[in-house]
């Protein structure tokens, strides 16, 4: 019940909020805090009771806190039996994401205290968004997964479209359409998978139970002989389609242009959620679904995935350097950093995959911090033009220090979480012949990242204080609290990465073994 609670408590609180009159702003604010704190507490219970020895991935028994109820079960005649279940469960891949969601979710709520417009609607949307994101990370049934995936879209659309900046409608629609097209591709493959996998492969066609359960699809013994996805090249096609569906969310070059627009227009807390959690849904989809279901395609396309990862890293970094809007710069740096996840996953080594997972978590907290940093200055100066500041370190020394911390975390300074992730990705990528050359090229990203962050810092914070900004106030205690929480976790993961990696070790190794072994078996399928 813990997982259901985790998912639905924000939604229940959101539903309760509907009856509260909209003038009572404190109810909404503290209600949202309450929901987030409960989530965080539940996640703490999860971590407390989590069994580190169980792997999960393609073994139903390896999942923990499982909830499994039959939901929709219809006989469809000669098409077999349609079986949709409400299945939740977590393993080492989803637990860190749940921690991240609950943590960044709470940070986002605190940051949302600065929202002044339609507070009731804002917090209701926010909590529904929170529920949907949590659901994505806990669902084990593809139908349910897709449901939560789409459910996330609607509140996000409104949160950008109503509470956003000047071009919010454009950004919201772009975001919606982009991700929606991505989800459609995903849906297509889900239906294909649904027809191709059954829980009782030997049965007569009308008795076959077509399940949406992901774990069923990860075991190739469940393939229906002669079905569409038992043909190798169709499997590759399905892999590509679904990969594109997730790639939009990551976002992978060249499907990334929604991200800078969405970030620039979204209010600060929504940027935090967007970069901190939402982008991870794409890469989480890769490891949760795509890698175990299509292992042979992963092996087949590994080089291409790594290539796109490296393009993301370098192109994102270079484009970030060419920006003048602080928020856009950080949005492009997100694209660059998510490239490391692709590279790490494509390496198919323990180090690489672990690096990718750590990067997902680490980028979640670092980018959250970066967007908060931008929010602080935007609230005070009402613009984000990098060239329009100057010498702010004099006026706001604490803020400058925090910004420098966030920048260095993002550019991979050892001792902070980003370094652990990048180091592992490089180690993994370099040790594999397939990705070796690409990894060497990717190291250039370390340099470009350093250049644009330090230039930005130099332009904004150093030199003589711009006389326009002698009145700026130092970062306040609410902002400082959020930054401290994020900063401490960045340090923790950076200095003592085992605190995070131990949760994932077994699962990550299992995933790699699965992909490698199943992949080699499957190649001879047809």
């Amino acid at each position, binding site marked *: 019940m813990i997982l259901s609670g985790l998912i639905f408590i924000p939604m229940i609180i959101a539903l309760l909020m509907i009856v509260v009159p909209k003038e009572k702003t404190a109810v909404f604010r503290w209600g949202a805090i309450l929901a987030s704190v409960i989530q965080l507490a539940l996640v703490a219970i999860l971590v407390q009771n989590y069994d580190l020895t169980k792997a999960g991935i393609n073994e139903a028994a390896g999942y923990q806190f499982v909830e499994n109820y039959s939901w929709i079960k219809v006989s469809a005649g000669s098409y077999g039996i349609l079986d949709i279940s409400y299945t939740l469960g977590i393993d080492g891949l989803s637990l860190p994401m749940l921690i991240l969601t609950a943590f960044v979710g709470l940070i986002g709520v605190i940051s949302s205290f600065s929202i002044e417009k339609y507070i009731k609607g804002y917090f209701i949307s926010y909590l529904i968004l929170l529920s949907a994101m949590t659901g994505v990370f806990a669902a084990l049934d593809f139908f349910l997964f897709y449901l939560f995936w789409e459910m996330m879209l609607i509140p996000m659309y409104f949160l950008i479209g109503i509470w956003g900046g000047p071009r919010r409608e454009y950004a919201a629609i*772009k975001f919606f*359409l982009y991700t929606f097209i991505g989800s459609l591709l995903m849906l297509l493959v889900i239906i294909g998978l649904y027809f191709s996998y059954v829980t009782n492969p030997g049965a007569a066609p009308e008795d076959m139970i077509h399940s949406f359960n992901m774990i069923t699809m990860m075991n190739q013994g469940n393939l229906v002989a002669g079905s569409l996805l038992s043909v190798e090249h169709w499997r590759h096609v399905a892999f590509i389609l679904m990969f594109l569906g997730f790639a939009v969310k990551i976002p992978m070059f*060249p499907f*990334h*242009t*929604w991200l800078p627009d969405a970030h620039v227009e979204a209010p600060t807390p929504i940027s935090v959620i967007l970069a901190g959690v939402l982008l991870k849904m794409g890469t989480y989809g890769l490891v949760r679904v795509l890698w175990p279901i299509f292992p042979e395609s992963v092996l087949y396309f590994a080089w291409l995935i790594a290539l796109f990862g490296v393009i993301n890293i370098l*192109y994102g970094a*270079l*484009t*970030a*350097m*060419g*920006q003048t809007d602080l928020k856009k710069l950080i949005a492009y740096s997100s694209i660059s950093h998510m490239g490391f996840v692709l590279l790490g996953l494509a390496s198919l080594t*323990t*180090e690489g995959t*672990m690096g990718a997972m750590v990067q997902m978590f680490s980028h979640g907290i670092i980018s959250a911090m970066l967007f908060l940093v931008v929010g602080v200055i935007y609230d005070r100066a009402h613009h984000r033009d990098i060239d329009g500041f100057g*010498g702010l*370190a*004099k006026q706001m*020394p604490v803020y400058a220090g925090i910004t420098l911390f966030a920048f*260095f975390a993002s550019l991979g*300074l*050892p*001792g902070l979480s980003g*370094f*652990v992730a990048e*180091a592992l990705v*490089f*180690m993994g990528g*370099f*040790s594999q012949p397939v990705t*070796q050359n690409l*990894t*060497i090229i990717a*190291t*250039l990203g*370390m*340099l*470009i990242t*350093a*250049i*644009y962050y*330090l*230039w930005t*810092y*130099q332009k904004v*914070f*150093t*030199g*003589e*204080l711009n006389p326009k900004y002698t009145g700026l106030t130092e970062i306040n205690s609410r902002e400082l609290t959020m930054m401290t929480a994020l900063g401490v976790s960045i340090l923790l993961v950076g200095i003592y*990465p*085992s605190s995070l*990696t131990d949760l994932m*070790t*077994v699962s*990550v*190794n299992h995933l790699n073994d699965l992909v490698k072994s199943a992949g080699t078996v499957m190649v001879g399928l047809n």
Partner: protein
Amino acid sequence: MQETIIQLALAVLILPLVSYLVQIFAGKRLPRQGDWLATGFLGAAFLIALYIAIHFLSAFDQTLSYNLNFQWLNLGKEWSIQLGVKVDNLAAITLAMVTLISFLVHLYSIAYMHDDSRYATYFGYLGLFTFSMLGIVLSDNLFSMYMFWELVGLSSYLLIGFWFQKKEAAAASTKAFVVNRIGDIGMWLGILILWSQFYTVNLDEIIAGIQNGQFTLSNTWLTIGGILLFMGAVGKSAQFPLHVWLPDAMEGPTPVSALIHAATMVAAGVYFVARIFVILSPDALTVIAVIGGFTAFMAATMALTQNDIKRILAYSTVSQLGYMIMGLGVGAYSAAMFHLLTHAFFKACLFLGSGAVIYAMHHEQDIREMGGLRKKLPITFITYAVATAALAGLPLFSGFLSKDAIIAGGWGWASFHGGGWYNVVPALGLTAALLTAFYMGRQVFLVFFGEPRNKEKYDHAHEVPAVMWIPLVVLSVLSLFPLFSLNPLSGDAGWFMNLIPSLQTVVPGIDGAGKLTELTELTHHAHWSTVISSVLMALVGLAIAFFIYMKNAVDTDKLAQSLRPLYLMSFNKWYFDEIYEVTVVRGNIVLAKVSAFFDTFVIDFLVNTTGFLVGFFGLLVRKFQTGKVQSYIAFALIGVLVFFVLKGVF
């Protein structure tokens, strides 16, 4: 004993970190902003380090070393990432050296930085730097070495840009970090090569692996790996072609320059190369020797014409680091390490001395504005003169011992390889010795002798307070020969060269022991000729400086005119900054602008065009929706008719 020493070493490592944390979070609220606390921490660290060093010196065992490993990251595989500390002779001596200089710089800064508004933060940054530097010294593995390596870069960034209101300081700090990062990337790739072979980052294990022939790639890869690792040192130790950041780094406070950009951090590169020395292939070492020799010469020529007292010293540092790198490259391992130690003391002394001059002259740094200061600053003058003598390589001073050993090693190496163009490397070193003596002579004569050229500033100058001159005295005493070797003309008999002997390579296919013996023999052979030639060089250099700047035998302006191309080349630092500005910096900006343009006007344009086309198609189709029921019926009817017609046709 092992445990005690390791614990003490860890205490030395942690103390500066504590100092940093205290200073950053509570420094402002402490009495005197906590300067006593930070200095005290470092003093304590130095005493402990001294104890460790004495322990090693009294044992006097070349192979003595203590290790402590712990598992940092275990990913459930047969390998894991092990970090740890290793204290051996070299680490113990370097530990004592770093903590001593850091302590003296703390002491010195109490007066020098007295009026600064971020006094507490400054001491915090010094603590952070010392912590990271000690981390490099103590690391027994490449991974944590790389981590501390970058942290050193961070603290250097913070300290160079300490006066961030100055545009130049901010730009210099960015430049320093970015240029260092180029080197770091190389180093990181080198680590990756070794990692992908051995799945360990522990240096001893890697060395053992290579020795046992477990390096499955060809020796070319070992050379590439070695050169890549060396790139890290090229960045940090400011070797050609990444030397450009160090002179700019002089924008930082002068004590910082003494600590970081003269004595310790820049020496970290040399220290690192020493640590990986045995796995470097002969080809990699040749590259290292050539780069070192060239840097020594190039930087010395740049120093000739500079007018900023600190910049002259900065180029001199680059040049001296070149010596050390060259020493390693030619296989004069212990000589290079020896020079690392002696150079740290006399160069720190010079920088702190120049700081004293700047302090006394109210932040005047141009040597053309000085003159005759020996009467006003007698202690500073004497210590400065001692350190200069050491740098210039005069006998009886420490610098002579170590520099001489490096050049002798160079000749030995050249004859080992059969002479030819190999002789160029030690020849460059010898020429640099001449140039060094000249520019240091020029500086001393212009600053301390002659008539004051800026009467007003001269009149206000007075000797610096005791907290500033005590470090000078300590450091200048440490620049004298008896501390290192009782024979003033040879360091070979000294304790250092005997405690830290030259190492033999473990690269497979090379007779390491035989090579070492032969090299040592050839080096001994070259010893006396080197002593004579380098003393001669130093004296000639000083004499030229004396005649030009004391006797005014030659008009400097006319000299500059007659050698104008050479003069400009030197004055403009061989135009490196300009070349990099045009190629690397501009290139980067252009690339960034291009990709930003591409993103907005190509990719996003395609996206928006797709959206627009869909909308446009919708507009066309919308015409059919008239809103009139009757036309809908008409369409339906037409549809039915078309259907029937088609049915009839097919």
